[in-house]
C-alpha cells in the first residue's frame, strides 16, 4: 500500500495509483475506437469483416460488407462493444473527474465532489428528458408545414378523442382499483395460510411477463372461432360448453374494455400483493393483539388498524400502477390497435405520429398524457417525502 502511494505521488496524481491512470488512458483509446464503431451504422459488420479478413475468411468478410453472412455474430459483437464502452466509459468519466477534483484544496474539493457525481445524470436527463419534453409541448402548437396553430388542441374535443379520453379514465379507475384491491385482498388472505410463499408465487409470476407477451397469451384465451368450428380459445370453450354462442371477447365493445383491463390486472396484482404483503407483515403483532384484547373483530382490525397503518404503501402501489395504467399502450395496441371503440391516448398518439403524419396532434396527445400523469407523480413524491420524514 505504502509503495503504491509513493508511486502515485511520484506520478503527480494525488491519491490515485499510477495503474489507474494508465488503465484510464488505454481505456480512453479503446472507448474512442469503440465509439467510432458504434457511430457507424454498419460498424458491427465492418469490424467483424475486418476480423474475418485477418483470419483469412475473405468470403465471409465480403458477405458481411454486403449486409449478408454472419449478421448475428456482428450484432453480438456490437452489443459487447456497446456494453464495454457504456460501462467502461462511465467508469472512466467518474475516475477522470474525481482524479482532477481530488487535486483541489480539501475545502473546495468537498464542495465540488457531489456535483461530479450528479452532473452526468443531470446532463443526461436534460438531454434525453427535459429537452424532448419541452420540444414536444412546443411542437403540439405547430402544423405539418411549421405554422403556429391551436388545431391540434381544439380537435381533441371531437367525439373520437372524447371516446379515447373516456377509455383512459375507465382504465385508470378500473385497472388501478382492480390491481390494488385484488393485491390487497390476496396479501391479507395469504397472510393466514400455511403455504403462503407458494401461493404468492402463482400470483407474482405473471409480473415477469411483458405486457405484449401477456396480451398474446390472453388473445388465446379470448380467441373466437365460427360457431361451427371447435373453440380453441379457453374462455369460449367454457362459454360454449354451457350452450352459449361464442363471443368475440377481445373485439366486441364494450366487453373488450374489461377483457383488456383484465390482462393488466393479471400482471399488476402480483406487484401490489408483494408490496402490500410486506407492509402487512410490518404491522406489529402487539398492536394487533391489543386490539383483539379490546374485543375488535377481524374486520375491524383489518379496516381500522391494518389499512391505516399501511396507508403509505397503498398510496405508493396505487400511484405506481396508476401511472402505468395511464400510459397503457401495449395491451390495446396488440389486441387490435384500438379498432373497436377501445382506443387509448398512447395508441392514438402512436397512430397520429406514424400512420397519420400528424406530428403536432401526436405531440398534443403526448402532452395530455404528461399532464394527466403529473398529479399522480406529485402525490407519489409527497408520499415518499412523508415516509422519509417518518
Amino acid at each position, binding site marked *: 500500500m505504502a509503495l503504491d502511494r509513493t508511486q502515485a505521488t511520484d506520478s503527480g496524481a494525488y491519491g490515485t495509483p499510477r495503474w489507474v491512470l494508465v488503465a484510464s488512458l488505454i481505456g480512453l483509446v479503446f472507448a474512442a475506437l469503440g465509439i467510432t464503431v458504434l457511430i457507424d451504422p454498419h460498424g458491427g459488420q465492418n469490424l467483424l469483416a475486418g476480423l474475418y479478413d485477418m483470419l483469412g475468411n475473405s468470403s465471409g468478410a465480403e458477405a458481411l460488407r454486403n449486409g449478408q453472412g454472419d449478421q448475428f455474430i456482428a450484432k453480438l459483437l456490437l452489443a459487447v462493444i456497446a456494453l464495454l464502452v457504456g460501462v467502461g466509459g462511465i467508469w472512466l468519466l467518474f475516475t477522470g473527474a474525481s482524479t482532477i477534483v481530488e487535486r483541489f484544496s480539501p475545502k473546495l474539493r468537498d464542495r465540488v465532489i457531489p456535483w461530479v457525481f450528479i452532473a452526468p445524470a443531470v446532463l443526461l436527463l436534460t438531454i434525453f428528458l427535459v429537452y424532448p419534453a419541452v420540444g414536444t409541448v412546443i411542437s403540439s402548437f405547430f402544423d405539418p408545414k411549421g405554422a403556429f396553430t391551436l388545431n391540434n388542441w381544439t380537435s381533441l374535443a371531437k367525439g373520437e378523442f372524447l371516446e379515447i379520453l373516456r377509455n383512459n379514465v375507465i382504465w385508470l379507475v378500473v385497472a388501478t382499483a382492480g390491481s390494488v384491491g385484488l393485491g390487497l385482498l390476496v396479501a391479507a388472505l395469504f397472510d393466514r395460510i400455511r403455504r403462503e410463499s407458494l401461493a404468492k408465487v402463482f400470483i407474482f409470476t405473471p409480473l415477469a411477463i411483458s405486457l405484449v407477451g401477456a396480451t398474446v397469451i390472453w388473445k388465446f384465451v379470448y380467441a373466437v372461432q365460427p360457431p361451427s368450428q371447435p373453440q380453441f380459445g379457453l374462455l369460449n370453450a367454457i362459454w360454449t360448453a354451457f350452450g352459449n354462442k361464442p363471443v*368475440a371477447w377481445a373485439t366486441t365493445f364494450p366487453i373488450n374494455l374489461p377483457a383488456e383491463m383484465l390482462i393488466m390486472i393479471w400482471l399488476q396484482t402480483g406487484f401490489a400483493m408483494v408490496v402490500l404483503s410486506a407492509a402487512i407483515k410490518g404491522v406489529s403483532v402487539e398492536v394487533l393483539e391489543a386490539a383483539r384484547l379490546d374485543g375488535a373483530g377481524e374486520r375491524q382490525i383489518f379496516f381500522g388498524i391494518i389499512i391505516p397503518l399501511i396507508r403509505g404503501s397503498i398510496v405508493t402501489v396505487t400511484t405506481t400502477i396508476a401511472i402505468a395504467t395511464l400510459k397503457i399502450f401495449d395491451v390495446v395496441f396488440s389486441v387490435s390497435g384500438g379498432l373497436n371503440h377501445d382506443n387509448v391516448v398512447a395508441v392514438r398518439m402512436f397512430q397520429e405520429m406514424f400512420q397519420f403524419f400528424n406530428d403536432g396532434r401526436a405531440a398534443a396527445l403526448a402532452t395530455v398524457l404528461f399532464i394527466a400523469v403529473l398529479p399522480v407523480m406529485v402525490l407519489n413524491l409527497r408520499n415518499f417525502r412523508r415516509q422519509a420524514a417518518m
Partner: protein
Amino acid sequence: MGKKPWTMGAFAAAVVLIAGACGPAATPAPPAATTPAATAEPGASAPAATSAPAAKNLPAVPTGYTELDQALGSDQPMKGKKVSIQTQWTGGEATGFANAIADFQAATGIAVQVDSIGSSHETVLKTRVEGGSPPDMSQIAQPTAVLAYAKEGKLIDVGTFMDKTKLNAEFPSTIGLTTEGDHIWSIPTKADVKSMIWYPVKAFAAAGYTVPKTWDELVTLSDKIVAAGSKPFCVSAGGPGTATGWELTDWVEEVLAKTEDPQVTNDWISHKITFEDPKIKAAFDKVGSLLFKDGYVDGGGPQIVNNDLKTVMDPMFNGDTATPGCWMQKIPVWYGPDFFPDRRTNGGDSKYKIGDDGDIGIFPFPNISDTFKGAEGSADSFMVFTDRPEVRAFAEFLATPEGLEGWIKTVGVLSPNVKVPAEWYAGNYKLKVANDIASGATAILFDASDLMPPAVGQGSFWTGISDWANSNGSNTDAVLKAIDDSWPQ
C-alpha cells in the same frame, strides 16, 4: 394529388407469379445468373429453376439516364459506393427484389444495402427520416405517405435528375399519383391487381359449379353453396395487428368501381362527395348484403373482424381442397402460395398448385354494372431521400423495365412500367388472369383508401368498417357519419 383512374394500359402486360421458384425467406443462397463477388444477396433457396441463367437483367446503354449510363460504364466509376434502401418486402418479395438488383450490383460495383423491415416498416422509416438519418431510398405502399414526406421537405424530386417525359411515358397511369405540379416525388415500382377471387378448382368441378361472371351469378352460386351445407366466403378484415380493415375497404372500393363512374371514386377520395353520399352508401349496402347475409361467412361480421389474414383461407384446403369449408376469397395477386397452409407452416414449396387445372384457381371479380367495369389495383413506389450520384444511378436503374426483370422472371411480380415486354411474363397463370382482368376492365382504379388522408384511409375508415362488420352492417348510417366527421379539416 393526381388521382386519375388507371387506364387499361397500365396492366396491358400484367402479372405474374409463380408457383415454385421462391424459397423460404430466411435462407440465403446465391441467386442465379450473377457473379459471386458483389452479389451476396439472398436468393431463392430452391434451385431457382425458373430463372434464366445467362441473361443479364440490365438495361442497354444508353439507357436514357445520365448517372445510370456512367455507372454501367466499363470502368465502373461508382465501384465501392454504397446505396441503402429500406423496404417492407419479406419472404418471396425480398427474394424477388434481391434477384432484381443482383446484376446491377455486379455490373456497377455499387453495393446495395437492403433493409427489409417487414410489418413495422412505416414506423421505422418515419423514425429514421425524422431522426435525420434516412435510408438513401425507401419503398412505400401509400402515395399519401409519399406526399406527406414531400410536404415536410424530406424527399428529393426525382424529376430533377430523371427525364420527366420518359417517366411519364413509361408510367402513364401511376406516376401521377405522387406528382405535384412539376415535382415527381417517387417512382412506381411494383403493381398489384386486387379484383380477383381465389377458389378451389377441383371442388368447383366436382360440385358442378361454374365461375360466376356477374354479381347475380355470384349470389346464386353462394346460395347453392349454402344449400349444400357449406359457407361461400372466407373474409378477414385484414388483420392481425394494426393493419386491420383493409380487406373490407377493398370490398367496398371494388363494388364502387363496378357500379359507378370512376369519377365517383375520385370525388370520394378528394371528399367532394362524402361517405354519406347515397352512391357510397349503396356500395356499403351491396357488400353488406353479401358478406353479412346469414350463412355466407362462417360466424358473420364479428368473425370477419377476428379472422387472421394469414389463416382465413385455410378452410378452403379442407380435405386437400376436396371439401372446402369456404369457397371464395377476394384477395390481391400476392396472396398465394406464400399463405397456403402447408407452405406457411412448413416453409418450402406448397403442394397446392395455382391454376385453372391446379388446386387453387383465380377468377376475375364478377361485374355488376354493364357500363362500369372498373378494376382495383395498387402500386408500391420508391422515394429518394439523399442525392448522390450512385443513389441517382440506382433509382434510375429501378425505373427501367430491366430494374424489375430479375424479380419478374424468378419470383414473379407485376411492373407498372408499360415498356416491360409481355414475353417476360410468359407462361404464367397469374399473368393470364391479370391480363383478363386488365383487358376486361373499363378503368383500373388505385386503392381508394390509400389515396385518402391517412387519418381516414388507415384510420377512421378502418375503425368504421370494423364497427360496421361487428354489427353485421346494421349501423351503416352511423358509421358513415363517423368517418365523415373524422375527415381532416
